[in-house]
C-alpha cells in the first residue's frame, strides 16, 4: 500500500539532497532527501527533526544551483517524513523549479 502522504498536490517523485535549519533547533543543520517535489511544496525525509519544528529554512540541491526557500511543516508521517509547504518562491526561482520538475526523469 502506498504511503498516504505521497503523490499529492502535483508533486512528482524526485530524490534530491536537502538540508534544513529550524529556529527551534538552531545549532544543527539537518540533512535529508526529497521524496516528492512540487512547485508549492515537498515531501521530505528528514531525520531527528524536532516535533516542534514548524518553520524551516530549506536548501534543496537542484542541479546547477541550490534553491533556498522558507517552508512550513504541514504534515508528518513515519519514518521521518514531513510534508512542507513553501512560503514564497520568487518568480524566477519558481520557474526554474517548475522546469526542473517538468523535465526530471
Amino acid at each position, binding site marked *: 500500500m502506498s504511503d498516504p502522504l505521497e503523490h499529492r498536490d502535483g508533486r512528482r517523485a524526485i530524490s534530491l539532497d536537502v538540508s534544513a535549519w529550524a*529556529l527551534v533547533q*538552531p*545549532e544543527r*543543520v539537518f540533512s535529508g532527501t526529497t521524496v516528492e517535489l512540487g512547485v508549492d511544496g515537498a515531501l521530505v525525509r528528514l531525520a531527528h527533526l524536532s516535533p516542534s519544528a514548524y518553520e524551516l*529554512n530549506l*536548501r534543496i540541491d537542484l542541479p546547477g*544551483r541550490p534553491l*533556498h526557500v522558507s517552508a512550513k511543516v504541514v504534515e508528518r508521517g513515519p519514518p521521518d517524513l514531513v510534508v512542507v509547504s513553501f512560503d514564497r518562491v520568487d518568480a524566477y526561482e519558481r520557474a526554474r523549479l517548475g522546469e526542473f520538475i517538468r523535465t526530471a526523469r
Partner: protein
Amino acid sequence: MMSAPATKTRLLAGTEDLLLGIAAHIDRMSRYAEVIARQLGLDADCARTIRGAAKLHDFGKIAIPQRILLKPGPLTEQERLVIERHAVIGHQLLRGSTCELLDMAAEIALSHHERWDGRGYPRGLGRTKIPLEARIAAVADVFDSLTRGRSYRAAFKLQPALELIRAGRGTHFDPDVVDAFLAAEAKILRVRRSRRERS
C-alpha cells in the same frame, strides 16, 4: 574565585565590548562600502543607500546561537553550516518591503558571501550574477574583518590586509570593486582612522 558581583560586572563589560565591537564594525564597513560605491561612479544618493543597506549585511546572525557565533576556536563542519545559514535567514527577514533600502539590504544579506569565482555561498553565484551592492559589501566587510581583532585571532596589520584584498581580485572579489577600493585607499584609511578615534 571571583565574587558574584565581580563576575556579573565582568560579563556585562564583556557583552558591552562585544556589542560595541560589532557596532563599530558595522559603522566602518558600511562607510567603506559608500566610499567604494562613489569611487565606482555611483551617485551620492545611491552610495548612501548602499551604506545604509550594508549595515544590515549580517542581520541573519540574530538567529544563530551565540555559542557558535562567538566560539573562540575552529568551527566544526556542522557549526560552519549553521553560520552559513545567516545569509538566507537575513534575506528572508528583510525582503518583501516596499522600502528601497531594505530591499537592497535583503540582497546584500543574501549575497555578501558569494565570490566572484562562484565558490561562495549560499547560491554559488559568480561574477555579475552577484548584485553589485553585495560585491561592494563583500570587499568592505572582509577588509574590516581582517583589520579588527577577534577573540580567536589578532588583527591583521594594514599592509597585509590590503595585500589580501589585492590577492582576492578576480577570485574572491570583483576586480573592478577591488580596483575602486585600492584607488580610494586614502579615503578608506581616513574613515578607518576617524572611526577608531571615535570608538
